């Protein structure tokens, strides 16, 4: 059987190959081939073709292009600025003013989009011009957008949860239900930290938004309805058991098309662009997923998960110690690996141990997604930092990095909360789908 040293070397090799710029998907295939050839025989990969066919001929994974398409349509054809204005009517009067609108709009957008990067770009583009002319701390403005946008993958629908569900045979519906309360809680934590900071240091946000008259505020409230309706239809049909996530996403796409039709932004060119972006994003995800599935298969034959689980039981690690180890492991890994690569690349090794340690797969899925959120805003590779900086187009990226720190702390606090009270995650899925 494989030794711990060999496993560590293998993992080190994987990181090294990724860091020298090999394609992340190719690294995983390459490691599978190397592992199979060195320890057993390349013959165990004879059925690789059938595996790839079985991995990709997958109705659950079809939810990925569906939700990507839904997000693309709403980003390119929807009207984020109207949503932003309407939300600022209601959130702008809190201490911290428009900063709350960044968080609120991100949460709202997250509820129809499965991607944090798209959320960051969209909110950033609307919010930055609005905030530039006002008297807000630029760091906090940038940080609130970069961090708020990470809610995109925690609040359902979430692409990351579909990938996790498909790779680990965990119900995507359950994961979606599990993401709701932590998502709301994190939104509240983000807003709380803004209020607290602005109370302590009032100079961070000296500008208050003038109240729009009630008639205007109520009229603008209508702008929120389409997003709320799409969210309600998509998520409602999943929670009520009327549709699978894939089917619900398809319904969402039709709703988005109708919405764009009513906005008069629906053109063939726009649809084609959305479809191309959808195929592109889906393909880059699937290449990594099939590579990881192949690696998963080889690691299973080599007995890697058993070896690691054996090591953990030898050192007598408790569930809590193991989770804390994972927390540190993912924070470090997230600093220098791209988020998808980090999540998909570690599932084959980590997930079997998680199951062996008796940790609920749904709970772990949410934990992993929060770790992905952390990696999206930790330098030097946090994608959201660069997106927000890119939209801003001036100054130093350090401003964005500094600004995300309070929100990063809130994410860690959320992890602590779901460790202490796992029911924050598990209550809703157990309530709507029965105990798992």
């Amino acid at each position, binding site marked *: 059987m494989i030794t711990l040293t060999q496993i560590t070397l293998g993992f080190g090799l994987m990181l090294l190959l990724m860091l*020298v710029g090999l394609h*992340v998907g190719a690294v995983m295939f390459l490691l599978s081939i190397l592992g199979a050839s060195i320890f057993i025989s390349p013959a165990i990969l*004879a059925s690789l*073709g059938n595996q790839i066919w079985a991995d990709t001929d997958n109705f659950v994974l079809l939810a990925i292009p569906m939700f990507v398409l839904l997000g693309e349509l709403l980003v390119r054809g929807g009207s984020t600025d*109207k949503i932003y204005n309407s939300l600022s009517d209601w959130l702008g009067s809190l201490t911290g003013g428009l900063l709350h609108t960044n968080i609120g709009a991100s949460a709202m957008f997250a509820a129809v989009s499965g991607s944090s990067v798209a959320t960051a770009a969209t909110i950033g583009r609307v919010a930055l011009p609005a905030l530039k002319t006002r008297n807000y701390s630029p760091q906090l403005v940038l940080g609130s957008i970069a961090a708020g946008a990470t809610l995109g993958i925690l609040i359902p629908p979430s692409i990351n949860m579909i990938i996790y569900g498909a790779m680990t045979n965990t119900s995507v519906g359950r994961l979606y239900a599990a993401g709701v309360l932590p998502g709301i809680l994190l939104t509240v934590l983000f807003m709380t930290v803004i209020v607290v900071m602005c109370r302590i240091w009032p100079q961070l946000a000296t500008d208050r938004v003038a109240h729009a008259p009630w008639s205007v505020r109520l009229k603008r409230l209508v702008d929120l309805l389409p997003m709320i309706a799409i969210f309600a239809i998509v998520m409602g049909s999943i929670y009520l058991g009327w549709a699978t996530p*894939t089917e619900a996403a398809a319904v969402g796409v039709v709703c988005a098309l109708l919405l764009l039709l009513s906005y008069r932004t629906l053109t063939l060119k726009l649809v084609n662009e959305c479809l*191309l972006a959808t*195929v592109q994003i889906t*393909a880059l995800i699937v290449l990594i997923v099939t590579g990881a599935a192949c690696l998963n298969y080889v690691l299973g034959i080599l007995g890697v998960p058993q070896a690691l689980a054996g090591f953990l039981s030898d050192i007598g690690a408790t569930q809590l110690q193991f989770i804390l180890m994972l927390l540190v492991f993912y924070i470090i890994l997230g600093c220098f690996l791209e988020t998808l690569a980090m999540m998909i690349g570690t599932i084959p090794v980590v997930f079997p141990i998680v199951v062996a340690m008796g940790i609920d797969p749904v709970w772990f899925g949410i934990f992993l997604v929060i770790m992905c959120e952390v990696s999206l805003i930790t330098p030097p590779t946090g994608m959201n930092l660069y997106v927000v900086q890119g939209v801003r187009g001036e100054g130093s990226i350090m401003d964005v990095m500094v600004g995300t720190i309070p929100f990063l702390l809130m994410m860690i606090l959320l992890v602590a909360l779901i460790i202490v009270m796992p029911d924050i995650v598990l209550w809703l899925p157990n309530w709507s789908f029965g105990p798992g």
Partner: protein
Amino acid sequence: MGKEQINPVTRIAQPIARWAALLCGWALMAVVALICIEIVARKLFNSSFQGVDEIGGYVMAVLSCTGFAYALVTNSHVRVDLLIARLPRSAQAIANILAMVILAGIAVFIVMRGTVVLQETLEFGSVSTSPLQTPLWIPQSLWLAGLVLFMLVAVAYAAHGLFLTLTGKTSVANTHYGPPSLLDEVEQEIAALESRDPQSETTP
């Protein structure tokens, strides 16, 4: 780096891959329509025509594997550029070409294994074990065609990159085969937003 030069391989491969990706995209749209019709039929008439999920699965398989090629010509497959960006230019070229050669090798390997799948299906005349009884060679040959397209592009890129490096044109090799930098991705995201109809930008 100089003025952006168009990669000759991309110039030939991009239109083909784009066209294939667009076809897959519209196939996805067709599945969207099928699913919605299915849901309405299920809810209203209590009758369900079988097989939408099966067709959806086939579309997913063909779409993702054909998309491999499109993602390759648009240089959007995930690569980490943290370390490579800090290397001297010659070392960068070696890392970039290594990446392309390994990707091409993997693509060839996948196509070899994938060919076996289609061969067996043809040999045994396999059909799906579902009410549709789809002859599996139909979706599988489309799927394999997508993988072959990916392989051809990957091999051409590797050969071109190797040629550039061996003839000393390392900086050209780096422009063509460097990892998608974070800035590229950011530019793409912003470009996507800017392609929005200006009509929807007007604030009330």
